[in-house]
């Protein structure tokens, strides 16, 4: 009986409590009116909470009208709403890119942004997708501090990406790209920017040491889009437009060319080269118009489906990119598909698999310079009276006396294309036996097949100088099978409410296998398309093939700890074993440690919280490596050479390279210090970091000394020398909203100072770019090294006084209007010793400015990027101004070049002989200020929400690279590294020439979501 009463009172009490509560319901959606499942709905000050369901709906009871409900979800700004008289509250959450609880991928794990102790910059895929680019790193330019991206023009070109400067002279400077946890090498051309969910740039060694021997150039982690719980969503993105190619130079017409060349001849004492220039009036061959398209189309399209349930989420996308070349033939086309499925079998088991088939094809001529350089008098085709009717279609073109091969003919002959097919399969299985303990295994297999085909037709345009008497066919098929397997165990635990610790241990195995087979033949019966097969070759058939393999096995661990959200420590350790090194150095250790103090969470900072939203100090240290050297450097190799002995061609062998059993990684040791801050609820936020990294045991390919008995061209890799990079990264962001108007400003600022600390021997001089750059101890690598052009000789007195102390002329062949080269060392001779530092390819600083504005449904994005303080060698100066060659020159050069006192102090007099070596001596004549500011992107968009039966429809108009402000007179101020095949990747930086420019592009965009 007693119990009956008790139960009665309990029921009564509950009823009373229930009667006092208010039931609130509603829906939570994003800006695009798409429901958000899983949003935390909490009654502030109570433990009452709920979550939105699959359709974004929620129901929650609040105690009274004064209650406040907080809605929060990862990646969105939390909202607090007072209940009042409302019983239904519908919420639209705004996305936030700066939220501290945002998840950041850090390598083999993901952590909250607030827990990050090292230098990591994160950027959302959405920001990268504002530009239409083939390579997503081009869109990264200026958006991340500490990252210098130098754009490269042309379909399929890969920009140069430097993360905190350079740490190597001879090896690759490209960062390691890791896609969904799988290392994918140093190129990312295969990935569409539409596939990317987010990108993290690991800038310092404390962040990247977990990737050990390949992390010295930094690591870029890319997370691709995955399905989310919710209804099936479709989205279609299309961006299409024209790339514009205007002639960067105003070249002379036929009459002007004749006038210029005659002046060059006359100035050298010769009679007119082309007498009576007026006879050529109106007879100019417009080569540019004949062969270069002013506008070429570019298209980036993507169609995606995503959605899922609690048990299964999926995301499928089909992506297409096409950029045609300016020649009207060739270009770059890419079709990729990504099929991602994630399964949750139970609370403990989950798994996922992503398939990524890809197809790429590329190839385009590269002779656009010839359209400017060829003389404007030569016609495109041979005159009818020079044709016999027996020529093939490639032999009807005219030959230019300028030594430039007929560019129209060259483009017509072009047949050099590559097709690449890849399939990447990436799967994982995850088990969480107890709360906080996650056991994960992930494997990936990449299978690729690349086919390169080239056909060169036979032709005779000129019997002596422009011909291929026999046609040739060549094809190379390259296969690769790479696999990766990585296993990790992670345990997260909070002790006593304030001690938060996480330990991860794991191991990885990677193997990269490749082989190729190659065939060559000559004498295909004719040049028709159907005959362009190796089997049709009738002469000199040849073949070859090779295979290669490399592997890495690693053990890794990370320990993270923080006390009460104030004091953070992260330590990582990786031990790499690489097949590229021999027993003595097969294994190497790469440790790192970083600490962070979130001072804002200290009690004494409480009064500042009205203003400060975040304040944190960071410091990190780590060691990383660079092993980007050829796979088989541990082998001693025999080379093949052919020599003529007694009139017979003899096949000979020689030791071409020797193994160095002590070879090991280049090691980069890095320290960095940073401060992160946020003000006024993170309206203003940013970070400032200083770093210094030293490279030890740099890898150099050295020749043997003569006394060793090896041929002079035998080489051996060896670890010698060291260098240092240091600098500052700064990011400042400001964002705010006033009514319907929202805006944001991001400013990135990057400085890099590089210095060689030691080389293989004291006083060693490393020359690069055909002795035009020098790398020595105590200086930045690859600075421009040449003579100082000290103006032009304006009058006879200046010419006469340019002597040594005894009256011997320093430049005996100089005439008025020639360059006065400076006797830098004052020894009274002008020789090699007068070469000095005449410029630097390295920028003093880079600045990025990213603006975005929104007003109602309009949005506007503008991105600017600048490089300040670097110099560029304008190699085109000789082509454009030098009268010694018969190539075409810039219009009006006869008046631009020196032709009397005071007429010019820059362009030397026109001369057929150039006896003063105005152009053949590498001097500061070629050095120009390479600073520039470029408007990378300007995009205006308008979005319709829930119109036309669609969730979202956005149309946009954008212009890329529309404006560039620079004093550089060459083709494009974005000039990257030199030819890696000649060891000039770093030592040949900053040489501009007829490089394919980064083209201005006008685009229309369409984004549809339903």
């Amino acid at each position, binding site marked *: 009986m007693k119990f009956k009463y008790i139960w009665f009172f309990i029921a009564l009490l509950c009823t009373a409590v229930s009667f006092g509560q208010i039931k609130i319901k509603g829906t939570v959606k994003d800006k695009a009116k798409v429901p958000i499942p899983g949003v935390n709905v909490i009654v502030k000050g109570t433990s009452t909470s709920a979550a939105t369901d699959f359709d974004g709906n929620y129901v929650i009871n609040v105690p009274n009208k004064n209650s406040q409900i907080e809605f929060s979800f990862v990646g969105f700004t939390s909202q607090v709403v007072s209940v009042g008289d409302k019983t239904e509250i519908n919420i639209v959450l705004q996305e936030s890119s700066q939220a501290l609880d945002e998840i950041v991928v850090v390598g083999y794990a993901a952590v909250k942004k607030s827990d990050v102790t090292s230098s990591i910059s994160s950027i959302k895929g959405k920001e990268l997708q504002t530009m239409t680019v083939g390579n997503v790193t081009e869109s990264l330019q200026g958006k991340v501090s500490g990252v210098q991206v130098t754009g490269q023009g042309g379909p399929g070109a890969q920009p140069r990406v430097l993360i905190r400067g350079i740490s190597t002279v001879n090896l690759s400077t490209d960062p390691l790209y890791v896609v969904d946890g799988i290392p994918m090498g140093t190129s990312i051309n295969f990935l569409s920017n539409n596939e990317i969910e987010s990108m993290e740039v690991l800038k310092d060694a404390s962040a990247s040491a977990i990737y050990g021997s390949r992390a010295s150039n930094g690591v870029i982690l890319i997370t691709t889009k995955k399905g989310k719980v919710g209804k099936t969503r479709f989205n279609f993105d299309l961006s299409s437009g024209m790339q514009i190619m205007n002639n960067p130079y105003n070249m002379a017409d036929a009459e002007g060319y004749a006038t210029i060349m005659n002046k060059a001849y006359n100035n050298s004492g010769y009679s007119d080269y082309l007498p009576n220039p007026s006879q050529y009036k109106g007879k100019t061959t417009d080569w540019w118009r004949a062969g270069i398209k002013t506008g070429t189309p570019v298209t980036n399209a993507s169609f995606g489906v995503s959605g899922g349930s609690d048990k299964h989420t999926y995301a499928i996308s089909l992506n297409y990119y096409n950029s045609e070349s300016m020649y009207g033939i060739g270009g770059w086309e890419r079709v990729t598909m990504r099929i991602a499925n994630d399964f949750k079998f139970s609370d403990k088991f989950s798994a996922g698999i992503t398939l990524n088939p890809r197809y790429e094809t590329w190839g385009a001529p590269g002779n656009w310079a010839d359209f400017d350089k060829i003389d404007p008098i030569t016609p495109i085709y041979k005159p009818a009276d020079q044709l016999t009717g027996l*020529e093939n279609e490639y032999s009807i073109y005219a030959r230019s006396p300028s*030594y430039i091969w007929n560019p129209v003919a060259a483009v017509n002959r072009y047949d050099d294309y590559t097709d690449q097919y890849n399939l990447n399969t990436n799967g994982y299985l995850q088990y969480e036996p107890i709360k906080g303990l996650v056991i994960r295994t992930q494997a990936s297999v990449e299978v690729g097949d690349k086919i390169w085909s080239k056909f060169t037709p036979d032709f005779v345009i000129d*019997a*002596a100088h422009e011909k291929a008497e026999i046609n040739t066919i060549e094809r190379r098929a390259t296969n690769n099978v790479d696999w990766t397997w990585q296993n990790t165990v992670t345990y997260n635990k909070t002790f006593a409410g304030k001690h938060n610790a996480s330990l991860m241990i794991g191991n990885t195995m990677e193997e990269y296998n490749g082989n190729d087979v190659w065939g060559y033949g000559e004498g295909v019966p004719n040049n028709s398309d159907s005959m362009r097969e190796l089997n049709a070759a009738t002469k000199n058939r040849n073949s070859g093939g090779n295979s290669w393999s490399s592997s890495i096995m690693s053990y890794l661990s990370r320990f993270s700890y923080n006390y009460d959200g104030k004091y953070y420590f992260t330590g990582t350790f990786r031990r790499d074993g690489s097949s590229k090194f021999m027993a003595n150095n097969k294994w190497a250790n790469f440790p790192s440690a970083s600490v962070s103090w979130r001072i804002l969470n200290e009690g004494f900072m409480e009064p500042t919280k009205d203003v400060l939203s975040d304040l944190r100090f960071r410091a990190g240290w780590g060691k990383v490596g660079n092993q980007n050297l050829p796979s088989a450097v541990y082998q001693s190799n025999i080379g093949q050479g052919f020599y003529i002995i007694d009139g017979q061609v003899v096949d000979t062998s020689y030791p071409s390279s020797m193994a160095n059993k002590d070879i090991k990684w280049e090691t980069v040791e890095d320290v960095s210090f940073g401060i992160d801050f946020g003000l006024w609820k993170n309206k203003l936020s940013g970070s400032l970091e200083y770093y210094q990294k030293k490279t030890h045991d740099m890898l150099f390919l050295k020749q043997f000394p003569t006394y060793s008995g090896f041929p002079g061209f035998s080489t051996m890799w060896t670890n010698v020398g060291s260098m240092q990079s240091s600098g500052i990264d700064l990011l400042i962001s400001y964002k705010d909203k006033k009514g319907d108007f929202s805006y944001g400003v991001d400013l990135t600022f990057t400085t890099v100072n590089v210095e060689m600390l030691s080389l293989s021997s004291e006083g060693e001089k490393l020359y690069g770019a055909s002795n035009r750059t020098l790398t020595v101890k105590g200086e930045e690598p690859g600075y421009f090294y040449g003579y100082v052009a000290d103006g032009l000789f304006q009058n*006879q*007195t200046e*010419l*006469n006084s340019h002597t040594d102390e005894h*009256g011997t002329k320093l430049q005996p062949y100089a005439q008025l209007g020639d360059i006065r080269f400076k006797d830098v060392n004052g020894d009274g001779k002008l020789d090699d010793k007068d070469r000095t530092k005449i410029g630097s390819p390295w920028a003093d600083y880079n600045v990025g400015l990213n603006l975005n504005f929104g007003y109602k449904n309009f949005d506007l994005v503008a991105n600017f990027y600048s490089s300040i303080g670097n110099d560029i060698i304008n190699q085109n100066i000789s082509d454009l101004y030098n009268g010694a060659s018969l190539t075409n020159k810039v219009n009006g050069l006869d008046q631009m070049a020196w032709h009397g006192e005071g007429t010019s102090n820059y362009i030397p007099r026109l001369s057929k002989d150039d006896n003063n070596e105005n152009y053949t001596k590498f001097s500061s004549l070629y050095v120009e200020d390479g600073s520039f500011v470029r408007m990378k992107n300007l995009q205006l968009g308008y979005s319709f929400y829930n119109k036309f039966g669609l969730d979202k429809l956005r149309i946009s108009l954008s212009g890329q690279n529309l404006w560039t402000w620079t004093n550089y007179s060459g083709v494009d101020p974005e000039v990257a590294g030199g030819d890696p095949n000649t060891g000039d990747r770093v030592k040949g930086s900053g040489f501009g020439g007829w490089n394919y420019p980064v083209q201005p592009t006008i685009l229309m965009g369409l984004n549809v979501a339903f």
Partner: protein
Amino acid sequence: MKKNVFLFFLTLFAIFFTGCQNNESGFPSSDNPTVVVSTKEIYGAPSRKFEIKAALADDLGLKSVEIQIPELSLDKVISFATDPLLKSYDLSYFFEVPANRGTSEAFKIKLIITDVSGNVVNEEANLRLDGEFAAPSITMVTPKEGAVILLSTSNQMPVNFVVNDDSGIDYVQVKCEALGIDETVQLTGSPQSYTFNKTYTLPVTAADYVLTITAKDKFAIPNTGTLSVNIVATNEYPALYLCDQPKGTNLTTDAVGVPMYFHEKSGQDFEFKYYADKDNKEIYFLGQESDFAPHCFGLNTSGELVDDVASTAIILPTKGYYSIKVNPNTLKYTATKYTPSSKVWADIANGLWHDDEALRRPFVSVCGGGIQGADWDTWTAWVQTGLHLANNPNNPYQLVGEYTLTGQMEATFTGQWWSPSWRLIKNGICTMSPGENGNAKYPAAAGVYKVVLDTELERVFITKK
């Protein structure tokens, strides 16, 4: 108030800065520098360098010397290092007088010497352009360069030369160390011309000698001329030459080929191949290349071969190719006419291309140096059609043309892409590729020359037109 503080500091810094600027030399005061020019009268001449010599000194340190001749556009400043300070300096500065200046002109040379204390001293010298700088000219009558003295005939070496100089000759010296000759003739009265004539006796053993002749003039700044003559004293002729020029012809005006070097030699049996371009062609054999004397082989009145400068020419009766054998010791010779069998390079020089290789017509041009319009690029050889050789209509084995030589020349006669090509090596030999390596350089006076490439003889004849 703030403004006043700002102005105060601005003024203060301005004073500091100005003070620093005024203290520009940083050296204590010192005496004036001194200058002693080696001569106040300097002789020069158009297109010729003269020397300005002076001794400069300063008790503290020299800063600079400026040399000015405004009329000749000379304003040269020589600055001296100041760490350590330079107390004395021997100025020796050469300057070339422009070619367009007259020999009667004269100028002032101004020297401005500054020391580190800022003291300035000026000095002047006169420059006259009527100087005589030509070395005495020495003209050899005998022996000429490369002369061969056949010891079996005579061991006497007559030395005969003429010296001329406008300002008068001071002395003449003849030296030959190997022969112990060292003879100086001091002349009185500074004659403008002097003839030396003396005969020396040679040892009977074969040897090569160098005779050095020196002559000095009497100008204020004396000029010295030197000539060295190589002489071969031998019991055998090292070479014989075939000369088809009339006696008395200057044999040094050609660039290549006259007289013609032998083709084969065995002991003293020499063999020539020769093309007589007309009937009754007259030839001689010479023991030396540059002169008819001392060994000229011709016919005596009996029609026998003799080594006599007064001999008459050997006559080849009809036009055509001859194989000629001669022995200068036995004084026997034969001349046999023959029909060449080497490849005839007919129909060349039109440069027509044809897709069908068999129908292509090559050209023969020239690559080389010292030939106007030519360089070592076969493209140039092709496009410079003035260099193309033509077939000699009278002899299919000869390609003929006309070149302007600009000085020392070298050549390879070539078709398209060096095929065919004939490289001109020493002694006028021009073998078809592949032949001997190394293009020979031939001195030549600038001018227009007639060129004959004889593909049968494999010889080139480049003679002044």
